[in-house]
């Protein structure tokens, strides 16, 4: 073992300190909110809570799970994540496979690719987009949250590049064995691309869980809001018009701040649960799009 120089040791100390501080800055705000959500409201209002719950209490959680608006929006989000992810993944695979072919075996490929890529480069803008969805009569239905974003072009490009990096012999041998394009896609390409597909799947689920703006403008009635949109109205907008008198009385007891904190935690929890799986894949996922011939 070689001896570190004095300068090197100072550098390493400073380096570890900086990095640990950065890591704390990413973690402590969440701990603070978690501690707030688990504390009693007098303790929170007195400013006694920092990183550990004071006067431990689950009252806020009990309140939010008994709140029909919260529970309802939770259900809608589950539906959205399941349905939306399924539609996204199906379309991603079904587009990436044909677009990964070369121009000789699929002559219109370049035209199709440009039709899809152009949608990343240019947008009609918020108002025409909203009017389009209004005209399709999807407003206020779950499909308004799924169909407008059903084709995730970036993910298609990611998977397309992954498919292209696979050896061409796979496809050829599959054709010789008598399989068509559909069989080759489902039985050969999809199974061996599982790492890439799993990455995209996790990102897609997180995306659906997190998105809130579309719910906010495409759902006319707040009872159709997915969880994130509902959270936006209660945490950020502080819209009390939806509350009933008994709720307001209860709020006096459990405090607005602890309830908000509890809802933030519940909104973030599923992300924290899938996070370890995500982390296993996403580094690979980021690099995977860059493999090109």
């Amino acid at each position: 073992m070689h001896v570190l120089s004095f300068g090197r040791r100072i550098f390493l100390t400073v380096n570890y300190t900086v990095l640990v501080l950065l890591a704390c800055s990413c973690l402590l705000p969440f701990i603070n909110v978690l501690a707030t959500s688990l504390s009693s409201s007098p303790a929170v209002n007195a400013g006694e809570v920092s990183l550990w719950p004071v006067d431990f209490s689950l009252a806020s959680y009990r309140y939010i799970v008994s709140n029909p608006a919260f529970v309802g929006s939770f259900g809608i989000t589950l539906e959205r994540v399941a349905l939306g992810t399924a539609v996204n993944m199906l379309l991603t695979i079904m587009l990436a496979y044909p677009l990964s072919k070369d121009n000789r075996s699929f002559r219109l490929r370049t035209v199709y690719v440009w039709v899809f890529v152009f949608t990343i480069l240019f947008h009609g803008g918020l108002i025409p987009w909203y009017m389009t969805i209004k005209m399709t009569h999807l407003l206020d239905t779950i499909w308004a949250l799924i169909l407008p974003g059903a084709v995730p072009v970036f993910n298609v490009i990611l998977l397309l590049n992954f498919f292209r990096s696979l050896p061409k012999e796979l496809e050829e041998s599959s054709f010789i064995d008598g399989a068509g394009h559909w069989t080759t896609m489902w039985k050969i390409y999809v199974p061996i691309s599982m790492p890439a597909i799993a990455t995209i799947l996790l990102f897609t689920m997180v995306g659906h869980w997190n998105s809130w703006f579309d719910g906010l403008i495409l759902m006319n009635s707040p009872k159709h809001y997915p969880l994130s949109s509902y959270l936006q109205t209660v945490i950020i907008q502080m819209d009390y018009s939806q509350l009933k008198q008994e709720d307001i009385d209860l709020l006096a007891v459990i405090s607005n701040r602890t309830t908000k904190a509890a809802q933030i935690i519940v909104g973030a929890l599923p992300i924290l649960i899938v996070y370890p799986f995500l982390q296993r894949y996403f580094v690979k996922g980021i690099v995977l799009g860059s493999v090109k011939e």
Partner: protein
Amino acid sequence: MISFKWRRELPLHAMILPGLVLVLIFSYMPMFGIVIAFQKFTPFHGWFGSPWVGLKYFEEMFNRPDTMQVVWNTIYIATMKIAAGFIVPILVALLLNEVNRAWIKRGIQTFIYLPHFMSWVILGGVLVDILSPSEGIVNALLKAAGLKPIFFLGNLDWFPRVLVISDVWKEFGFNTIVYLAAIAGINPTLYEAAIMDGANRWKQTLHVTLPGMLPIMVLMATLSLGNVLNAGFEQVLVLYSPSVYQTGDILDTMIYRMGLQSFQYSLATAIGLFKSVVSFILISVSYWLAYRFANYRIF
């Protein structure tokens, strides 16, 4: 022979069809809907029945006193985010590279990637709570240090800074991934040669690591050019309030309020079109530059 080729390709067309239809409806129809900007549009009369008014709403847009302020806010906030969001991940990747205990490195990475996966609703809730002037933990710390509390989200000077800092905070960790991948790809013999030539760690960083990261740095810088008009719609919408419109209102939030809250559809579409066209040019130029100088292709 031709018919055989078509038949062979038929399943490929069939696979594309559903996605194509959805994109035509939800991406290309809105592009057609840009006609709203040139009409006195009402939803009742629709895209085909509303009267045409030419460039009236574009004139109105440029004559509004607040338009220039909002454009400036957008460019200012976005540019600050691009600059800080470019430098910080590079520095952190270099620092992480000096950590030689794998588990510490992994642990730090786990924490700094986390905010990237949270939505702005969650992060906004956290920020509003910790930055609150009366009860937030940040101001409690300031007070403990003998400083005056700051109303971060209600102060015209502080609001844009909070936007930039919180955006960098959310994304810096995740953005280190590409740089760490670039560092991992550097040929180890280069370091051996540098050590033979008597280079210390600092010289190695300067002459081996940084040049090794340069291509990806150029690429990231170029691609960020397309974001000059994207100052972070969801973030601003979650954090701002009327008291900070003067420095915090951006094009996207202005379009949203105008179009979907005060129902000035045509004016909002005109402003949106202005933004879309400028962004289109910027993105196209940035992809072209990335292709030209970093040999980058998206597909």
